[in-house]
């Protein structure tokens, strides 16, 4: 077991973990942050996407020990402390960018990363950026629409 410390959604966290513990396992099982999902085990689906020091990362393809000292943001950290949804979250809701919702947290985290580096992406750029996020329900049409709408709303 090794001791790790990190900030998760603004709160400091310290824990003992086995080195082989994945970051996603740590978030879900140790911290109870079950909004981060596991949809595959091979780094394709993006349901486990989180931000590590402001960068999009697949938490199923990262060890918790690698996140030692890092700032992590998960889907649970995307709304305001009073629960008010962020612009991207609201856009996914308003534009029906979800059905079963299982991919949604990862999509929102990807969309946030995209809009941070490219505040006004074209549809083409949105589609390209979402290559690593699988959705089996929506056909992506409304997801792309939601990201575009969020970009516009953030102006």
């Amino acid at each position, binding site marked *: 077991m090794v001791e790790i410390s990190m900030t998760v959604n603004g709160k400091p966290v310290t824990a003992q973990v086995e080195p082989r513990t994945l970051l996603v396992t740590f978030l879900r099982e140790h911290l109870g942050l079950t909004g981060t999902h596991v949809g595959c085990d091979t780094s394709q*689906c993006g349901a486990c996407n989180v931000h590590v020091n402001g960068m999009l990362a697949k938490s199923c393809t990262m060890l918790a020990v690698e996140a030692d000292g890092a700032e992590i943001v998960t889907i649970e950290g995307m709304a305001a402390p009073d629960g008010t949804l962020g612009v991207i979250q609201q856009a996914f809701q308003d534009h029906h960018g979800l059905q079963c919702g299982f991919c949604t947290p990862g999509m929102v985290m990807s969309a946030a990363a995209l809009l941070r580096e490219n505040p006004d992406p074209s549809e083409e750029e949105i589609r390209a950026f979402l*290559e690593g996020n699988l959705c089996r329900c929506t056909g992506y049409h409304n997801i792309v629409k939601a990201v575009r709408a969020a970009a516009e709303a953030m102006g």
Partner: protein
Amino acid sequence: MTVAVHKPHPHDSAPLHVSGKARYTDDIPAPAGTLHLAFGLSPAARGRIRRLDLAPVRAAEGVVAVLGADDLPRPVDLSPAHAGDEPLLATGTVHYLGQPLFLVVATSHLAARRAARLAGIDIAGEKPVLTIDDAIAAGTDLEPPLEWRKGDAEAAIAAAPHRVRGRIEVGGQEHFYLEGHAALALPLEDGGMEIHASTQHPTEIQHKVAEALGLPMSWVRVSVRRMGGGFGGKESQGSALAVACAIAAWKTGRPCRMRYDRDDDMIITGKRHEIRIDYEAGFDADGRLLGVRFAHFLRCGWSTDLSLPVADRAMLHADNAYHLPHVTIRSRRLRTNTQSNTAFRGFGGPQGMMGIERVIQHVAATLGKDPLEVRRVNLYRPMAAVAAGEAAQTTPYGQPVEDSIIDALVDRLAREARYAERRAAIARWNAGSPVIKRGIALTPVKFGISFTLTHLNQAGALVHLYQDGSIRINHGGTEMGQGLNMKVAQVAAEAFSVPVEAVRITTTDTARVPNTSATAASSGSDLNGMAVKAACETIRARLTRFLAERHQCPEEVVRFSEGRVHVGTNVLTLAEAARAAHEARISLSSTGFYATPKIHWDRTRGQGRPFFYFAYGAAVSEVAIDPLTGETRILRVDVLHDVGRSLNPAIDIGQIEGGFVQGAGWLTMEELAWDERGRLLTHAPSTYKIPVASDRPRIFNVALWDGENREPTIYRSKAVGEPPFMLAISVHQAIAEAVAAAAGVPFVALDAPATPERIALAVRNARAGENAP
């Protein structure tokens, strides 16, 4: 004016989904001491278990118990068809590579999985039956071939001026619901069992768990809050996990949970049925089909599961939207040593339609006609003509088609999508393009709505009106992302004329609404919406009677509208009405029930009215291919789809878009592969490709047909879950057109999925004159 239905409310769980608060089965916090399960899987596809040494598994770190088939309290058959061929754990022989052999119960998910690999397994292997050809050779039919006949197809074909014959092979499809299978069992103090499961069929899980534990069904309670996608894959195949959890919980007295990791999910569970269709058709100079014969061969996998009704539905959609005066459909359901294929959106219907759409394309190429012309001369007689007194044409199974709007729908779509102009433009473009070729196709869909097992067409609901005017509803349907709960809440809100926010929908629960059917066959809103409406109307009638009495007025003057209860000139809130009724000791709770009328079906004879009504739609797809590499791009898709009077247009359009893309995935990129030992090679999304955002059509126009169901369904809407899936057949047909253009031939027999490699090969073969039949 409606207050709640026919409006585009977002999914009721959307705020939870976007904030990560929505709980799926594996997110439910479990009590301390919860154990975790994993199956040990067969390393061979077929053979006899000579030795199963579980001692190393038992000795592994964290392992609490290990159960083989002999350790179960009683033999467990998971077969949804009660076929007796689906033991929870293999008994003596194994039937596919990945079949659960034993069950590990451990202190963590990873400990269980690690231990499951440690067994000493010795199987006396036999040569597995893997492919359709293997199965035909071995004669492994699940039941004798089924044949339905209308008229005399053989004679009609023989007498026809033109004939085609050929074969199409269409691969299976992995569901790839983003949330894998999961279950949680909580043993109760009195020996009962509470189950949470990611399932489309809680009642079946309840039934199987009760059977496995030797309990009455009333002692088992199954709840489903939501699934992360189902698509049919969770209709029957979740039983293994739930039953395993229940048995382990019963044995250990501790809560038990289980989830399949993605590779286990893909290796263990069944998929869409692969099909081979041999066809022969006779037709006249206009392309009118005079006689058609189909032979279906379905790869069913190792157990019966739902294969018989799936294969039936393939036969039931062998006509798609076309009147076939003389037709014979023969179907063989073949057992193979692979995963047990199961329900998947369309339930065989898409496979059946691929046959007739291929026939149309083949006929058109033979006559040198636009396939749309051939489609038009064969479409079923319109509803308007039938209403005006012309005889309804019948399906191959004898059901009169009385509600067809497909001709008008196709006309409108062809016009709005400028099909004819674009087809001409594409021909010109192809003539001048040295490499890249385009293709366009318009295909229709007519999909039958109802379970073909007639007794499944029923639903129950439970509605409570509280004294503050708030409403809580339960129904037998399950939410898997399709927006069922929102639609049903809209129905309840409409009944009391209150905003949809006043209605709270809760977990699907066998203790609240019993004896439910699977949420499947696109029937969720049709059945459960009606059941909820019935319950609401019962309560409303009680309120009406009570208010009329209290205000000394006839019942007719009591109205629920615009969020208020009007009693003549008195206006009450629903809360005031409810409180007053409660104080007068009027029950504000009711069950509701619905059974679909008019339907009856004899599957052996292939005769009856299996479907209450048909849902229609059509799509125009335009694609470009690079024949050098086989790469495809969907340039534009136009869809016009019939959902009757939509309960919720936003949800319905979402179903259409999602269904279309999933269908396009099936026909263009999703390819399952097994090696010669029967090992599934595509058991992860790194090897099995599903559509991503960039695969979506460049232009994607979806419109709803403006009409209403002629049958008295819930607010005259139509079912929407499955039918749009088959709109994607237009993509496959467009690709085949482009391949033919690239090869400079009129027709190419393109199989599915039309992967780049298959397209490149088809072009090469067609150029070399090696066209199929």
